[in-house]
């Protein structure tokens, strides 16, 4: 699965996710990536989120929307919201990760499994790529 989140100069956020799914998937199985609110969500009032991981668990948790809801309704910081939702998803049995950016430009990686490939860039010239 691949994805991106961005915050533009006007302060708007967006998210996109794309995937082939699981090797050997059958019966028309669909994961979380194309389900708005599970693997992908963006809301200027909260954040933009793109997810990767065990999709069935991310669907049940509604991971991307749940992170945004905690930010918007409870005032949770992005890091706290993302880590809490990923922890709850892990309790269900699902592992994976999210990338998150807020309308103020804050960025967060949160993941509960190895093999997470990440990149980050900003207007200030910050640039990093890593395999975690």
């Amino acid at each position: 699965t691949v994805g991106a989140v961005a915050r533009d100069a006007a302060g708007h956020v967006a998210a996109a996710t794309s995937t082939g799914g699981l090797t050997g998937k059958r019966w028309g199985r669909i994961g979380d990536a194309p389900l708005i609110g599970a693997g992908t969500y963006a809301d200027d009032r909260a954040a933009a989120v793109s997810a990767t991981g065990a999709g069935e668990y991310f669907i049940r948790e509604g991971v991307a929307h749940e992170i945004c809801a905690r930010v918007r309704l409870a005032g949770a910081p992005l890091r706290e919201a993302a880590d809490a939702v990923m922890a709850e998803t892990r309790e269900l049995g699902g592992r994976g990760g999210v990338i998150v950016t807020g309308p103020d430009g804050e960025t967060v990686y949160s993941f509960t499994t190895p093999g997470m490939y990440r990149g980050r860039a900003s207007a200030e010239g910050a640039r990093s790529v890593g395999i975690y």
Partner: protein
Amino acid sequence: SDWTLLVHGGAGSMTRDTIDAAQDAAARAGLNAALDAGSAVLAGGGSAVDAVEAAVRVLEDDPAFNAGRGAVFTHEGHIELDAAIMDGATRDAGAVAAVTRTRNPVTLARHVMVDSPHVLLAGKGADAFSAEQGIEQIDPAWFATPERRRQLDDMKARKTGSFDVDLKYG
């Protein structure tokens, strides 16, 4: 201007313990190329939704990642692609599932968001909508790579299920 961009690019079963130097270099190059594409949009004053589409298109075209070219195989040996995009300014959203002939599914998802009254289209209908929209179509063989075929063959030989998340081919 003040902008930020993050990308992720899953490469299936590879972790730091199993990835070789060539795979590591390919993954890092792909992530950097995606950052280049998205950053160019944002640095030019473009929108966040334009930037995420641009970045994801690069990753879809890169066979190092499980999306677009380089995507995993279904049990029947086909490739079925899913994608979504969402604009935080308006909460407009578009998504596609199990599409087979669109080179860049994220662009098709954006067309669903902008040019249809719907949010999620799937299967043959989504393929038909893609063609009607004039989005680039491609022979499904273009998505296939020998490594992904090997992984499917390996999974079938092990007689494990596709939801063996520890195997994590995908």
